[in-house]
């Protein structure tokens, strides 16, 4: 589904990704781990199409098409979803409005009619109940005054409403208390299906106790230094990241 080959990207004059390759197939859950500054978030932003990052080499294919040729909104309509590490507050735009606009943008792209107001509310209520979110969040400004945990739940709500084929969740577990972490994990697990791929970008192993990954990759200096199954995450948790660097350097 997602095929990244020798991806090199920089912001300004600083190269952050240096020949990264990664393949993700439908039905799989991948965890991307690594120390701060290893390029995890950059990878997520480049796949979503953030203009601050310049791709200088390599390719990214999504469902066989060149993803780098598409605008951010086109990528989203094609089924790519990025859960932001720092969701943006947008006072004056209510959450329901954003959800509806996003759902309709995708429906229009597929040649479907706009979602019926009743159907939309029913769906939103259902997803919010699953995430333990109060319905008052629908009428509040997007992320406006939300706590860290509320913002992350809100990202998962958007994901649940949009049902992406590829979801990349950037540090969605950071700053969450145990209840929020369980709610977020529940939302991710509910989306797991043979048709979808999920990439969890995380610094800690904690989330992986609740969402079991099929593959774990460790990023170091802008490329994947090591890949393995879920036991790799446990080893990282026990031994830290230094041994990966040492192993690569050796």
């Amino acid at each position, binding site marked *: 589904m997602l095929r990244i080959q020798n991806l090199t990207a920089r912001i300004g004059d600083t190269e952050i990704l240096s020949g990264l390759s990664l393949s993700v197939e439908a039905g799989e859950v991948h965890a991307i781990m690594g120390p701060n500054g290893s390029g995890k978030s950059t990878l997520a932003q480049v796949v*979503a199409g953030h*203009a601050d990052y310049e791709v200088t080499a390599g390719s990214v294919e999504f469902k066989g098409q060149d993803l780098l040729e598409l605008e*951010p909104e086109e990528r*989203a309509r094609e089924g790519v979803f990025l859960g932001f590490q720092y969701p*943006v507050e*947008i006072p004056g*735009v209510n959450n329901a409005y954003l959800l509806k*606009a996003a759902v309709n943008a995708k429906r229009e792209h597929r040649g479907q009619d706009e979602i019926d107001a009743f159907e939309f509310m029913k769906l939103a209520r259902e997803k919010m109940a699953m995430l333990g979110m109060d319905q008052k969040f629908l009428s509040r400004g997007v992320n406006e005054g939300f706590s860290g945990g509320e913002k992350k739940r809100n990202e998962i709500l958007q994901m649940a409403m949009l049902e992406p084929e590829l979801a990349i969740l950037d540090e969605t577990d950071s700053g969450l208390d145990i209840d929020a972490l369980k709610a977020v994990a529940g939302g991710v697990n509910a989306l797991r299906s043979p048709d979808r791929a999920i990439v969890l970008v995380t610094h800690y192993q904690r989330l992986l106790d609740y969402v079991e990954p099929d593959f774990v990759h460790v990023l170091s200096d802008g490329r994947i230094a090591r890949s393995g199954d879920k036991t790799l995450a446990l080893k990282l948790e026990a031994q830290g990241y230094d041994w990966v660097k040492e192993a690569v350097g050796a």
Partner: protein
Amino acid sequence: MRPDGLAALPKQALETAVSARSPLTPDLPRQAALARFLKRGFPSTRAEDWKYTDLSAAIDVTRDWLAAGAVSGIPDSLADDAAALTGNIDASWVVVGNGQIVGDLPAESGKDGIVVERLSRAAVEPSIEQPLADLNAALLTDGLHVRVPKGARPSRPLGILYLDQTDEDPLVSLQRAVIDVEAGAQIAVIEYHASKGRGGHYSNTQVELSVGDGGSIDYVRLQNRDRAHSQTQRLGVTLARDSAFRHFALDLGGALTRNDLTIDIAGPGAEARFDGLYIAGDGQHIDNHTRVDHRVGPARSAQEYRGILRGQCRAVWNGKAIVHEGADGTDAVQGNHNLLLSEGAEIDAKPELEIYADDVKCAHGTTVGQLDESALFYLRSRGIGPSDAQRILTHAFAASIVRELPIGRLSDAVNTLIDRRLGDSLAMESA
């Protein structure tokens, strides 16, 4: 060089026009007002308060209008336009067409009622000595005197629709209202300004508002005039002990717009909250000057004006707060935030604080900027295209101030006006 405001005055035509004014308004000291006006002329850009706003267009229209005989009849078609504008807002409406009251005045009285009379029948002192107020007093033919008796709390807002139509001829429309909210009374007032027609047009509006002890007023002014017309408007407010003034002003239209809002805090415990939104496009100039005089404390004043500027246009915001000696316990806050969406847009924002008391809390902040790139990317990453994302964020910038609207029942109408002005029909808050 532009003509000097004084040199350009058509003195003789003005004198003729004033002499010919209807004797229905004997209480207006026209000649004295004219004499003062002729001495000082229109404000020129040499005056600090008028540095950025050039009234040449208003002067030209006034001269042409006087030369044409200064006739201002009321076109028949006004009635339909008025109905269309007032039909969507539930209020008791008074329609003022080309400066003349059209139809009947609301006949409300009694305990909960208000008294609405023609200015000509009420003995009213001349307004402040200011050239535009003098010009208004000299040429005025009709006006409103609204009295909200002690303790009255009318359930519906009073709406005043100022509608002007010019067709081919130049038109100067003079509008004046005196509103007295007596002790303990409460009222909501909606002012709606609209105009149409191809002729040159200048409107001069003067409103004097006083709020008695413990009284309160919610006052919303909506201005959606033709984009070719010029207008100057002054709202002077006096607040007594424990009174409240909540105001929202929306400016969408007009080629040149100048608003002066002056608030005199004369009684302790008074509270003034006033906000504004202006949206300027190609060829528009919108100037908001506000001034609050805190004469006594404790009292609060808070204002926030927001502007959205696109195309070749200019806006001015000048907010002055003066805390007079002895006005301890004053709390004055002012803010002005602007979204500049094009290279050719210009804003001159100036907060001014003059403090002569010790125990005061004053703050001001102004910002000028573009749309937030991270918010744009966030929306695009959700499948929303760039132009929709820009529109959504522009609406959001406006919505943050519109939600402070003091008359809740107006929010749909106000949002619709803004939506249309920003060029789309998305109803942001109704998803």
